[in-house]
C-alpha cells in the first residue's frame, strides 16, 4: 500500500508542479468559447431560414379562381402558400402555363403552375380542375405530367399558381 500511496503522491505533486489553477481556467474558457462559436460555423441552415408562410383561407380552397387549371395538392395546405413552395422543396423549372378568368375584375390572367419538388406527396387539399387540358398527345397542354422531371429530386410534393400577367385577347 505504501508503494501505491507514494506512487499517487508523486504523480499528484508532479502534476501540481507542471500545471496551475489558471491553466485549468484557461482550458475551460477555451472549451466554453468554442462551444459558443459552434453555431457560427458555415453549416447550411437554409431549411430553418424559411420564414413562416400564412396563406389566406381562399388559397386553401380548390375553387379559388386562379386554380382553374391546377392538378395536384395545394401548397397552401402543405406549409407554403399559393405562390411559395413549402420548406425543403424546390419549384420546378418546367411549368404548365394557362389562363384563368378572375370574376372579381372580369379579366383573364396568365398563370404558371409550378410543382414543388423534393419531398414525397403532401396529400392534403387535392385539387383537380384542369380547365382546357388536352389529352397526352399534346404534352405541353396536359396536366398529368410530373413537372418535377427536370429537378434534381423529381419527387412531387404540391403545386403553386403564380400570376405572370394579364392576358390580352
Amino acid at each position, binding site marked *: 500500500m505504501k508503494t501505491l500511496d507514494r506512487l499517487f503522491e508523486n504523480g499528484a505533486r508532479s502534476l501540481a508542479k507542471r500545471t496551475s489553477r489558471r491553466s485549468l481556467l484557461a482550458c475551460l474558457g477555451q472549451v466554453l468559447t468554442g462551444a459558443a462559436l459552434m453555431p457560427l460555423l458555415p453549416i447550411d441552415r437554409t431549411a430553418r431560414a424559411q420564414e413562416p408562410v400564412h396563406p389566406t383561407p381562399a388559397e386553401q380552397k380548390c375553387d379559388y379562381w386562379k386554380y382553374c387549371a391546377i392538378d395536384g395538392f395545394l401548397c397552401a395546405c402543405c406549409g407554403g402558400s399559393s405562390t411559395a*413552395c413549402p420548406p425543403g422543396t424546390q419549384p420546378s423549372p418546367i411549368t404548365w*402555363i394557362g389562363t384563368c378568368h378572375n370574376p372579381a375584375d372580369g379579366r383573364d390572367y*396568365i398563370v404558371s403552375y409550378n410543382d414543388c419538388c423534393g419531398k414525397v406527396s403532401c396529400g392534403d387539399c387535392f385539387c383537380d380542375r384542369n380547365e382546357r387540358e388536352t389529352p397526352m398527345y*399534346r404534352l*405541353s397542354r396536359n396536366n398529368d405530367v410530373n413537372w418535377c422531371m427536370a429537378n434534381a429530386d423529381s419527387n412531387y410534393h404540391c403545386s403553386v399558381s*403564380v400570376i405572370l*400577367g394579364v392576358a*390580352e385577347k
Partner: protein
Amino acid sequence: MMRAATVAATLVAVGAQAANPAQDYVLNCMGCHGAAAQGIPGKVPPLANALSRFMRTPEGRNYVLRVPGAANSSLSDEQLAGVLNWLAVTFDSSATANQLAPFTGREVAALRRQPLLSVLATRGTVVHNLATTGPSPPSQY
C-alpha cells in the same frame, strides 16, 4: 422555399397589339424554355443566343422549323413565325439578329410538316456546319 416567390416576380410584359408574339411565347413555349429562353441544362435546349445563330443558314432554318416543339406547337404558321422572329431579336446579346432574314408564314408552312426523325443527330450536323462559318449554338444542352 421562399425562392418560389421569385417566380412571382417573373412578370411578363405583354403587349396589347393584335399579333402578340410575347404572349404566344408565354402561353406555348415558356413553360419549358423559361422566361429568358434560357432552357434547362440537360433537358431543354436554350433559345437565347442560339435561335438567331440557326437562322444564319438555310440548313439551320430548316432544323429550327422542324424540331418537335416548333412543328407540333398549336401556333399557326404565322404565329410561329412571329414568335421565332421575336425570340431571335429579344434574346440575342450580340444584337445582330436584326440583320437576319425573318421567318415568314410561308416558310414555316413549307417546312414544319416534314418530320424530323433524328433531332439530336441533325442538330449535331447543323451546328458543326454553322461553326465553320461563324458563331454557332451549342451542340449539347
